[in-house]
């Protein structure tokens, strides 16, 4: 065999494969995701930077894991503090907007996931001017979450235990039964604010967080996770979880359940 014949024989993909982008199962979906991504102004490259949180479910003795990464960003949106018009009860983002922001977030954090295509948007909410999305995916066999919240001054990252249930993020199903132990919701510093993220059971439809400065904050719940933030540095004092029927589980008092690993702050 001459060299050209050998190289052609080693070709694992036919020249006719993937010929039609719209005919390929993921071709059009990828296109839509790209179109939904933010364009870059070359004259203002700093706009590329966004606030982002990302966590992974690396198991350690304490049940929580080390800091992964934080991406800094400006503290104000259009000159208005992030806390302006903050609401204790969030507005749920419509599915299209949540998906769009989740896709953008996944693209920003793509290096922290095995595949952007398998990342799902678990929660999308708005409080005041701040829109936040929590995304969930896998990296090297472990569950990992990432959070993008443009408008909050600082970002930081920590890690949480994975939500119980199947490992594939596309089929995340929290456990059917409610918890018997305290929820593993952790709060992180984000400049003048605190962000709380944690797994919840499948039958939990509503989560309310009480802070040490007497705020009562309703968390957003979806795909086995909850998300909330409040414009103070107060810690979580208690977490109340409610089922669809309105029944309340035994409230969990903090700081008993705060993570053993202190979250670190990245600029």
């Amino acid at each position: 065999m001459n060299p050209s014949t050998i190289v052609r024989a080693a070709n694992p993909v036919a020249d006719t494969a993937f010929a039609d982008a719209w005919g390929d199962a993921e071709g059009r979906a990828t296109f839509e995701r790209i179109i939904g991504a933010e364009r870059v102004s070359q004259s203002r490259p700093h706009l590329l930077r966004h606030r982002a949180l990302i966590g992974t479910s690396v198991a350690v003795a304490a049940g929580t894991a080390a800091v992964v990464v934080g991406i800094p960003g400006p503290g104000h949106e259009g000159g208005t503090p992030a806390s302006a018009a903050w609401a204790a009860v969030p507005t749920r983002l419509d599915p299209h907007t949540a998906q769009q922001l989740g896709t953008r977030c996944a693209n920003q954090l793509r290096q922290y996931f095995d595949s952007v295509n398998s990342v799902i948007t678990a929660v999308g909410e708005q409080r005041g001017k701040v829109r936040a999305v929590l995304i969930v995916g896998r990296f090297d066999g472990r569950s990992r979450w990432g959070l993008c919240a443009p408008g909050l001054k600082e970002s930081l990252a920590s890690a949480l235990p994975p939500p119980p249930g199947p490992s594939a993020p596309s089929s995340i199903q929290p456990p059917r039964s409610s918890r018997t132990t305290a929820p593993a919701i952790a709060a992180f510093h984000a400049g003048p604010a605190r962000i709380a993220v944690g797994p919840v059971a499948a039958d939990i439809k509503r989560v309310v967080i009480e802070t040490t400065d007497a705020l009562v904050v309703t968390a957003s719940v979806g795909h086995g996770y909850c998300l909330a933030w409040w414009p103070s540095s107060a810690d979580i004092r208690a977490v109340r979880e409610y089922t669809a029927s309105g029944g309340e589980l035994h409230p969990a008092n903090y700081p008993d359940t705060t993570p053993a690993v202190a979250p670190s702050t990245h600029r």
Partner: protein
Amino acid sequence: MDGDRAYFESLYREHYGAIMRFAARRTDQQLARDVTAETFLVAWRRLDAVPRSNALPWLYATAHNVLRHELRSRSRRSRLDARLSALLPSTNADIADAVVDRMHARQLLNALPEKEREALQLVEWEALDVVTAARVVGCSAATFRVRLHRGRRRLAAAAKSVQLAVEEVRS
């Protein structure tokens, strides 16, 4: 903006297959999809930098860089090699022979130095001319010709030695 979107859509539809094949020939299909998505994401974000008249070499070069970055940053080389060895079955009539031929060919090709292997793949798999292929890997055409020549020579020598070994076993 609408014009940009229309142009990008035509770019995507025209070259998606070529970039996807380029990536899928060098890694597993999941990573190939990621590389393709990243390549077009870069193109979308830097649409002004994409040559309007002949975008494919620019896309190949971007995909080449994205793929190298992915493989390096994720340290997937060892797993990639394992995946490469699990080749897809051929649609040829005699599947067993085709698979054996392909495995032999792949082994011979994988034994080449990376730059020479890449040169051969770009010319034979992507059917690029020397000047375009040189742009993709970021070297001069002269350097690329040297890599191509050495790769062909080394591959021919390796194939001949394997053939001799097989004949010795048979005799």
